[in-house]
């Protein structure tokens, strides 16, 4: 499964660039490192999970420093990169508190962001030659 590009240890600057790309586009880091199957699965699964959360009327939380838990949720939301930016730009993710699926939607969106953070850490390890 390991491609030649992934087996090489990347330079430090390249490693951080790959991690940034991996954060911005879910799965792109693995695709860059030649792990195509993993990259495609992450791209599809995380984007779908995020979209599903928004469809369930989940909310993209704002960075309100007066509410620490809301800030934590916002950081988790931001973990998905491009889908988050696109959703914000399109004005979706306002959330509807009275919707019966509101909390479920939040859970899907937040967990999608957190999982992408794990994916970025995996990309870092691969780029460093640890995996």
């Amino acid at each position, binding site marked *: *499964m390991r491609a030649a590009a992934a087996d090489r240890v990347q330079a430090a600057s390249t490693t951080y660039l790959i991690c940034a790309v991996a954060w911005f586009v879910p799965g792109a880091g693995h695709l860059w490192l030649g792990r195509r199957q993993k990259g495609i*699965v992450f791209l599809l699964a995380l984007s*779908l999970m995020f979209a*599903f959360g928004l469809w369930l009327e989940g909310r993209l939380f704002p960075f309100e420093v007066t509410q620490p838990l809301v800030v934590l949720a916002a950081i988790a939301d931001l973990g998905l990169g491009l889908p988050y930016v696109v959703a914000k730009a399109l004005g979706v993710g306002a959330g509807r508190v009275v919707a019966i*699926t509101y909390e*479920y939607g939040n859970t899907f969106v937040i967990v999608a962001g957190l999982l992408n953070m794990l994916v970025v850490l995996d990309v870092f390890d691969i780029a460093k030659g640890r995996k």
Partner: protein
Amino acid sequence: MTTHVGLMLIFSLFVSVVFAVLTRDEPREQVTFGARLFGGFVGAGILIGWLLYPLPL
């Protein structure tokens, strides 16, 4: 599909797929581990649901 159980199944599926692909390299191992994770999530969800059923006492 938007029942609690339905959403739990979909959530478990997504998380299992990502974790399996993240932690295993071979496709066969990914499928096996993913299926075990999915079963664990669903089983634990149902078990905890029944344990909480009598609450509040």
